[in-house]
């Protein structure tokens, strides 16, 4: 049991991977000399050298594609795209090559690649630097999408992601890097199942990434009102672990999905759809969504806060489901 930050947990995982497997290398903008935009890879260049901790030019399309090629060539690349906002420039390689290659080649060529990127808003970085597009990636067959929301997952998800024979995308919410928590030993290293972060029988709150803590805060407030909320952390955004949240909703008969993405076409819509498809007759009320307002993220703090999901909005949504307003 050690107390470390999410950032340190990610760094430890990277260091372990670099130490244990000579095929592993880290590549991306400013991962080396600069120490990583979020200081995640700080110190790794000094320890592993510029071949294995490789700074790239500003060329998202090419270095992500090069990561795919290196994976095909026998390496186990970890490509950092800095933030999801810039990953739009690399989407063609991720979708049209990485995701399709194995199936399209009749099973001959797999792409054991890990792509890391920061995601999300909350630091007043405004419209172009605050996207949450996890749902886009979670839509694509052929890739796995992970969203570590805890220090333990930040530490534990990389190894199984690297062991996976297919492309895995790791979304690190920018608000979590400074999160500090106890790291259990041994820590779980699972990339298949969702996790129940809090038990409750009255309503199921389903969240992931940066919204998990907001759901937990909402659950605390609801407890004061005598409402026992179960909180589920999706953890794996593709393929979704439907059983875990459907089982919970069957028991609580109510669900609120919390998602930092824009509401329309959000991952929350997919979760909601699956709940309805599989637990319709167990529902006491229509499942609800708490998502971001459908506007580009504004710079001004009060506007950004108003645009994002907040514990109070989650509490209100639950009250609505419980017929308390």
């Amino acid at each position, binding site marked *: 049991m050690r107390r470390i930050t999410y950032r340190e947990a990610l760094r430890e995982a990277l260091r372990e991977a670099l130490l244990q497997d000579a095929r592993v290398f880290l590549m991306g903008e400013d991962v080396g000399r600069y*120490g990583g935009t979020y200081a995640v890879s700080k110190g790794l260049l000094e320890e592993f050298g510029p071949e294995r901790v490789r700074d790239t030019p500003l*060329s998202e399309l090419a270095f992500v594609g090069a990561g795919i090629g290196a994976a095909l060539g026998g390496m186990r690349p970890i490509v950092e795209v800095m933030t999801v906002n810039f990953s739009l*420039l690399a989407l063609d390689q991720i979708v049209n090559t990485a995701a399709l290659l194995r199936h399209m080649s009749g099973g001959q060529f797999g792409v054991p690649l890990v792509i890391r990127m920061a995601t999300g808003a909350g630091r007043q970085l405004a*419209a172009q*630097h605050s996207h949450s597009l996890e749902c886009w990636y979670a839509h694509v067959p052929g890739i796995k999408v992970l969203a570590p929301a805890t220090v333990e997952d930040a530490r534990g998800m990389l190894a199984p992601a690297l062991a996976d024979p297919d492309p895995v995308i790791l979304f690190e919410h920018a608000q979590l890097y400074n999160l500090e928590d106890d790291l259990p030993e041994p820590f779980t290293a699972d990339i298949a199942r969702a996790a129940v972060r809090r038990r409750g029988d009255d309503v199921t709150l389903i969240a992931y990434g940066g919204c998990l803590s907001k759901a937990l805060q909402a659950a605390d407030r609801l407890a004061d009102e005598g409402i026992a909320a179960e909180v589920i952390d999706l953890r794996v955004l593709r393929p979704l672990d439907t059983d875990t949240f459907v089982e919970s909703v069957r028991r609580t008969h109510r669900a609120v999905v919390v998602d930092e993405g824009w509401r329309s076409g959000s991952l929350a819509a997919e979760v909601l759809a699956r709940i309805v498809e599989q637990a319709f007759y167990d529902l006491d009320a229509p499942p609800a969504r708490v998502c971001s307002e459908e506007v580009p993220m504004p710079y001004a703090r009060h506007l950004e806060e108003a645009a994002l999901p907040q514990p109070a909005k989650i509490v209100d949504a639950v009250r609505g489901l419980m017929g308390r307003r």
Partner: protein
Amino acid sequence: MIPAPPSGPVPYPREFALRLLADMLRIRRMEEKSAELYGEGKIRGFLHLYIGEEAVATGAIGALRPEDNLVATYREHGHALLRGVAMNAIMAEMYGKREGCSRGRGGSMHLFDAATRFFGGNAIVGGGLPLAAGLALADRMQRTGRITACFFGEGAVAEGAFHESMNLAALWRLPVLFCCENNLYAMGTAIERSESQTDLCAKAASYGVATRRADGMDVVAVHEAAKEAAESVRAGGGPCFIEFQTYRFRAHSMFDPELYRDKAEVEAWRTRGPIHTYSARLKTQGLLTEDEFQELDRAAMEEVRGAVAYAEAGTLEPVEDLARDLCGAGA
């Protein structure tokens, strides 16, 4: 090796010569204050300072006409100011106030102003280049006689957007003035580690584009290069690319620990500082006295004080207006 500090006579009438100095001081003082305000938490988000590079925006924008278009990056406070955006509106924007030039929606990286055809403030590296090509295409098709100045850092040269935009602009002979601010680093990445060809003019020339190189620490060199280039672009000679060799004195952003360069290098470049070397030249030429310099500096600080007061007194956009301006009227 770092070249000798800019020197030599300033070939301008006193009034214009002093205006260049005053403008550099206005940018410098505004940004020094911004950094301070960032420390106090009055300004948030990302803040990219232009300190050390003022000669580039000052000399280059001085070569534009009021009707021309300007496209900049996230390091654009100086460009906005010299384009004519009121310091009050810039400061209010960084405060996130409704009186800001983007109603507080954009912040430091997204300054916009329709009145001065300042198309912003783009936080995607290389994102402004296609836009500039398009603005120029519109001007060509409408025969407006306008040109579009597009500023970007040397780091953007590695992006596909640079390649595709240069080719489009050259192929269609669009009136774009590509202003590359080569400050040697893209965040922590030195140009040697991002470009196989570090001669950026050679790179740009491969598109069949006219190129120029100028000492970005020398406002005179910058202005002369920009003037000639702007003329050739305006005359229909097709796009022009200028590499301004400059240096960033401060960190990339307020989050940058600057592990990638040593203080000595920064200090060496400071000896080439655009403001003190230029004022020294003006003095030796007898165009400027120390008192006059102090006067200009005081005026700049006065303007900054006024801008801060304006921003402080600014109002917040009501939360109910969050979705305002998402769609245009009649949409």
